[in-house]
């Protein structure tokens, strides 16, 4: 079989993998050599090693990219697992429908969205992506095909949603969409001077808005600690869903020789971004792409971090300790001077997640990118781990390339129950890292 060098989105690991492909949902699971393990691989947008299987094989599913049916009355879409969310939106938005949950990029596959039980800016109202999956087919390496849903093979459903691809290959899924009247959103952007203001504003905004998310200036210290912009939005009620949608893209055409993200560029960007709106509150109307997927307008933006790549640190801390823990996290990050343009803060609601290993839970989630600066950033992560773990929080496997096994196991109480559902042929670099040498 073909061997290819594959990297994940963070570009920290680049490793040769034996590559198999599924080209149609009727294809059988590939025959592997006995010693090898395999991991389904969608569009490679996981940041760390949860989508890699170094020393083993990957089962590419991007070629499973067919729609199966679209009920334009009921908003029910069935498609193969390699279809990108971008392709779904291109089909359903003009018909007056929208995905019930979208992550920060539309370049993920349906299979990937399920395997990571992704969340969006409307978590407080809609919960995770997996809650809107009506059914899915799981192809096991022994050839078994299991139809899984909230009412059928429920244990397999709970293992596969958020199951990091380890339970077998999802071949297709059926999703419940939500209606919209316009491809635009009514957006309110509110500047806040510190974390206390953020928490007050957020509680208020969540009652009025379906989508809320905050950008934080990760360099803010002292009185400015946790200053940022809260973005709130609802789907516009006026207009026609079939309005044409602009689709212009920039690209980073080749990997940069060094990271463009450094102390100077970060300070300039953050200061300008924080002051970009004149008033404290600003109302605008935006197309869904620029609101939900601002980074998708720059293809290959991960190349900005240069050849060493970058890490994302995304944690969640439970509600009752959120204020203290977030303050401490931001203080630690600000004094390190590391960090990047994109620091995102979001309050998760208390809607339960359907997967045994789902990341979202009631609390506050903070996500930040860090250029890979070796030991310096590793030490910072250890300090952040201590704060997260002390508050009873955990990290997001889809973003992670380095968390200690103990932090994973304490944050995912059902991991041992989950391991009963792992396909004997499946494994991943992430899974071996966080569960072996226990």
């Amino acid at each position, binding site marked *: *079989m*073909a061997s*290819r060098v594959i990297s994940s989105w963070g570009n920290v690991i680049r490793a040769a993998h034996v*590559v198999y*492909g599924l*080209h*149609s*949902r*009727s294809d059988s699971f590939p025959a592997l050599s006995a010693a090898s393990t395999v991991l389904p691989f969608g569009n490679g947008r996981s940041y760390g090693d949860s989508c890699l299987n170094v020393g083993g094989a990957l089962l590419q599913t991007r*070629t499973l990219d*067919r*729609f*199966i*049916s*679209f009920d334009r009355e009921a908003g029910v879409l069935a498609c*193969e697992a390699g279809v990108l969310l971008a392709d779904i939106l291109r*089909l359903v938005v003009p018909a007056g429908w929208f995905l019930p949950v979208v992550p920060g990029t539309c370049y993920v596959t349906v299979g990937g969205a399920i395997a990571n039980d992704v969340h969006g800016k409307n978590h407080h109202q809609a919960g995770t992506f997996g809650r809107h999956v009506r059914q899915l087919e799981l192809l096991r390496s022994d050839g078994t095909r299991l139809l899984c849903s909230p009412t059928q093979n429920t244990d397999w459903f709970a293992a596969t949603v958020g199951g990091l691809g380890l339970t077998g290959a999802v071949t297709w899924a059926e999703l419940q969409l939500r209606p919209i009247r316009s491809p635009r959103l009514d957006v309110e952007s509110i500047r806040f001077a510190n974390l206390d203001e953020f928490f007050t504003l957020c509680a208020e905004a969540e009652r009025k808005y379906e989508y809320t998310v905050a950008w934080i200036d990760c360099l803010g210290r002292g009185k400015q600690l946790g200053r940022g912009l809260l973005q709130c939005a609802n789907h516009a009620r006026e207009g026609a869903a079939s309005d044409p949608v602009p689709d212009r893209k920039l690209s980073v055409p080749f990997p940069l020789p060094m990271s463009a993200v450094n102390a100077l560029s970060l300070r300039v960007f953050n200061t300008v971004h924080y002051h970009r709106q004149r008033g404290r509150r600003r109302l605008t109307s935006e197309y869904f792409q620029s609101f939900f997927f601002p980074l998708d307008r720059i293809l290959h933006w991960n190349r900005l971090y240069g050849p060493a790549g970058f890490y994302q640190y995304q944690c969640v801390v439970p509600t009752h300790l959120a204020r203290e823990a977030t303050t401490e996290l931001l203080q630690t990050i600000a004094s390190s001077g590391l960090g990047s343009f994109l620091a995102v803060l979001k309050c998760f609601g208390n809607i339960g997640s359907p997967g045994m290993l789902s990341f979202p839970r009631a609390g506050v989630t903070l996500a930040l990118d860090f250029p890979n600066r070796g030991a310096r950033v590793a030490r910072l992560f250890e300090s952040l781990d201590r704060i997260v773990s002390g508050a009873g929080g955990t990290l997001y496997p889809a973003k992670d390339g380095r968390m200690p096994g103990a932090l994973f196991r304490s944050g995912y109480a059902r991991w041992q129950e989950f391991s009963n559902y792992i396909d004997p042929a499946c494994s991943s670099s992430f899974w071996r890292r966080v569960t072996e040498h226990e």
Partner: protein
Amino acid sequence: MKKVLIVGATSAIAEATARKLAERGDALYLVARNEARLAAVAADLLVRGSPRVGTEVLDANDSGAHEAMLARAESFLAGYDTVLIAHGTLSDQKACEASVELTLKEINTNALSVVALLTRIASRLEQRRAGTIAVISSVAGDRGRSSNYVYGSAKALVTAFLSGLRQRLGRCGVNVVTIKPGFVDTPMTAAFAKGPLWAQPEHIARGIVRAIDRNSGTVYLPGFWRPIMLVIRAIPESLFLRLSL
């Protein structure tokens, strides 16, 4: 709305092309060997916007079945105006060198079955004095090379046949398009290491639809293959013998 018959409809290039046709509302009749894959492709094209999609399971090498298939396509589409022939197999050159049967089978699949289909389709469209026939040949047909001359010579036959057909049918308003893709990243080429010359099927599909719409004669896809093949064809045989291509 065009009414398009596609033979080899589950191949990656044909499927990518069919999606573009479906999205703009063309009616399609799809022919391929694998029933399950064919059904999956047809369902997808309906969702993407094609008003009608018919399917038929057929091995293109079964030339005795061509006539009935063409009649069914004709009746399903109420007369097709566009045909895309896209089936083929990438021959294992080394295995062919050791087997006459395999060599002839590859030539049959990639050339003779195409000739059989084209002969029947040409007379239908000639009578109607309108329509477009597009066939996927290959840059490999421009010059035989030691690494894949069985596949290449089959494609050379197709290219020459199309060139003559274009001359014949051009006089009665039927357009013949020869499509010569270079390296395309498809299941057929999964075993190859991919370099900068490789293109995605969607990219090739855009070129095919454009060629059909513009009544082009011969198109290289992507276009940079035209100068490359010009050079390769121009290399004197004495020098060519010493190259490893």
